[in-house]
C-alpha cells in the first residue's frame, strides 16, 4: 500500500467561469499501484481528463492532495517522473520523427548519443524504426500517435498518463493500437492511467476501470478486470470480457440521470474544455 504510484486523497476541483463556479471533481480518493493499467471512464463533463491532469500537475486541485511516487504531484512533474500522451499527437512539424522522440531527452539534458540510442529503441518498440527520418505530416494519424507514445516513453518514466490517446482514430486502428499498447505495457512495466470514453477499450486494456459520474465528477464504481494476461485478439471473444463490459455499462447508466443533456451538461463540458 505504501508503494502506490499515484495516491489521490479527498481531491476536489472547482473551475471559476463567467457564470459562477463549476465543481468538476468532488471527493475523489484513488490509489494506483505499480504496474497497474487503470482506465478512467465516464460521461462528458465527469472530470476524467481533469483528474488525469491533476495527477500530472498540469492543473492544481482546489482541495485535497495528489501524490505521485510518494511526492507531491508538482515535485514529481519537476522530477520528470511521468510521460504524457494527449488525444492529439502534438508532434513538432519542424522535427523529424526521430527528433520528436528525442525532444524530452533534449529538454532533460541527455547527450546526443544517448538521445539517439533511446529514440531508436523507442521507435523500434512502436515499430516505426524505418520512419525515423520522416516528418510528422508524412505519417498517418495512427502512426503519429505511436510516435507520441514513443516520445512519452523515451525518458523511461515509471508512470504514463494518456488522455483519450486513440479517441480520434478509426475503430480498426484503435483496436490495433490497443494491442500494441498492451505489448508496450508488458515490455516496459510502466504504470498507465488511461482516459477513454470507450467501454470496450477500457475493459480490454485495464486491470481496473474507474467509472465516474458527472455533476459533480465523482468515482461511482471501480471494476476489477480479471481477464487473463496477456490480452490478445482472443480476449475480445471471452464471455468474461462481455460480462465486464456489461458491468461497466450498467455502472455508467446508473448515474446517467434522466433525459437528454441539459444546459448544466454543456457547462460542465465547457469547464472541461477550459481544462483540456
Amino acid at each position, binding site marked *: 500500500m505504501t508503494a502506490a504510484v499515484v495516491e489521490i486523497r479527498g481531491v476536489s476541483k472547482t473551475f471559476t467561469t463567467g457564470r459562477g463556479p463549476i465543481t468538476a471533481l468532488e471527493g475523489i480518493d484513488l490509489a494506483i499501484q505499480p504496474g497497474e493499467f487503470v482506465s478512467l471512464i465516464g460521461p462528458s463533463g465527469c472530470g476524467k481528463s481533469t483528474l488525469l491532469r491533476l495527477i500530472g500537475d*498540469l492543473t492544481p486541485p482546489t482541495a485535497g492532495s495528489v501524490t505521485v511516487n510518494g511526492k507531491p504531484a508538482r515535485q514529481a*512533474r519537476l522530477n520528470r517522473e511521468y510521460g*504524457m500522451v494527449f488525444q492529439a499527437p*502534438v508532434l*513538432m512539424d519542424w522535427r523529424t520523427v526521430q527528433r520528436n522522440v528525442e525532444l*524530452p531527452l533534449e529538454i532533460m539534458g541527455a547527450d546526443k548519443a544517448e538521445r539517439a540510442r533511446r529514440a531508436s529503441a523507442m521507435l523500434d518498440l512502436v515499430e516505426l524504426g524505418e520512419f525515423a527520418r520522416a516528418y510528422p505530416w*508524412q505519417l498517418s494519424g495512427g502512426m503519429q500517435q505511436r510516435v507520441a507514445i514513443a516520445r512519452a516513453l523515451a525518458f523511461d518514466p515509471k508512470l504514463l498518463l494518456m488522455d483519450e490517446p486513440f479517441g480520434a482514430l478509426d475503430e480498426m486502428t484503435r483496436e490495433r493500437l490497443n494491442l500494441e499498447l498492451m505489448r508496450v505495457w508488458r515490455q516496459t512495466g510502466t504504470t498507465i492511467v488511461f482516459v477513454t470514453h470507450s467501454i470496450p477499450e477500457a475493459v480490454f486494456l485495464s486491470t481496473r476501470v474507474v467509472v465516474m459520474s458527472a455533476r459533480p465528477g465523482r468515482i461511482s464504481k471501480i471494476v476489477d478486470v480479471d481477464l487473463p494476461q496477456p490480452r490478445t485478439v482472443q480476449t475480445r471473444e471471452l464471455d468474461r470480457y462481455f460480462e465486464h463490459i456489461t458491468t461497466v455499462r450498467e455502472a455508467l447508466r446508473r448515474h446517467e440521470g434522466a433525459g437528454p443533456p441539459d444546459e448544466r451538461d454543456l457547462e460542465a463540458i465547457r469547464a472541461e474544455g477550459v481544462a483540456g
Partner: protein
Amino acid sequence: MTRGRLADLAPVVAVFVIVIVAWEVVLGALGVQQFLLPRPSVIAASLVNEWGTLVEGLQYTTIEAIGGLAIGSVIAIAVAFATARWVLARETLVPVAIAASSMPIIAFAPITNNWFGTESPVSRMTIVAVMVFFPILVNTVRGLTTVDRGALELMDSYAASEWQILRQIRVPNALPYILTAFKVATTLSVIGAVIGEYFGGPRQALGIYITGEATLFRFANAWAAIVLACALGIVLYLIVAGIERLVLPWHASGGRGEGGGR
C-alpha cells in the same frame, strides 16, 4: 522535384511573355504616344543605352533598401521577442506600433532629409526601416504567441524552462510567420527607398533619376529605371523565398499531407 519546379515556372514565364508581346503589339497597333506608355522594345533600348547610369543608381538604392530592411527588421524582431515574453511590453508597445503603422510614413521623407541630410542614404534607410517595422513586428509576435496549447502542456509535463519553450516551440513556430513578413517587407523596402528618393537624394539614386528623366520628357529612361526597381524587389523576394526553402525543410517540401517528399 526539379522537374516539378520547372513545370511550375512554365505558366509564369508564359504569362510574362504574353503580356510583353501584347503590350508591344497593342501599343503599336493603337499608335499610343511614347510619352504616355513606351513600348517594351523602346524601354529595352533605354535600358541598354543608360545601363551605366542605371546600374550606379540601382546600387545606391539597393544599399538603402537593404540597409533600411536590416535596421527595421532587427528592431522589429527584438521588440517582438520582448512583447511575446512580457505582457507589459505587449500592452504598451503594440498599440504604439499600431498607431505608428497608420501614419503615411513616406510623408516623413522631408523630415528625415532634415535629420540626416538629403545626400545621406540614412535618410531613406530610416523611411524603409519604419515601413518594414510593422509587418515584421506583427507577424513575429503572432508566430511567437499562437503556439499549440498542447505543445505548451507537453513542455510543462517535461518541466521545461521558459527559455527551452522559446527555443524549442516558439521560435520554430514563428519562423514561417517571420519569413512571410520578410516577403512583404522586401517589396516595401524598395518602394520606401525609391519613393523616399523622390524627395531628394544624390544624383545617381534611382528615384532621383526617374523624376529627373520624367521632367525632361525622357519617359522611356524613367521606365527603364522603374523596370530595374521592380527587378530589385523581385530579386530580394526570391532571396527570402530561397532562405525559406533552406530554413523550413518541413514546409518547403510543398506537398504537405501528400507524403511523397521522403
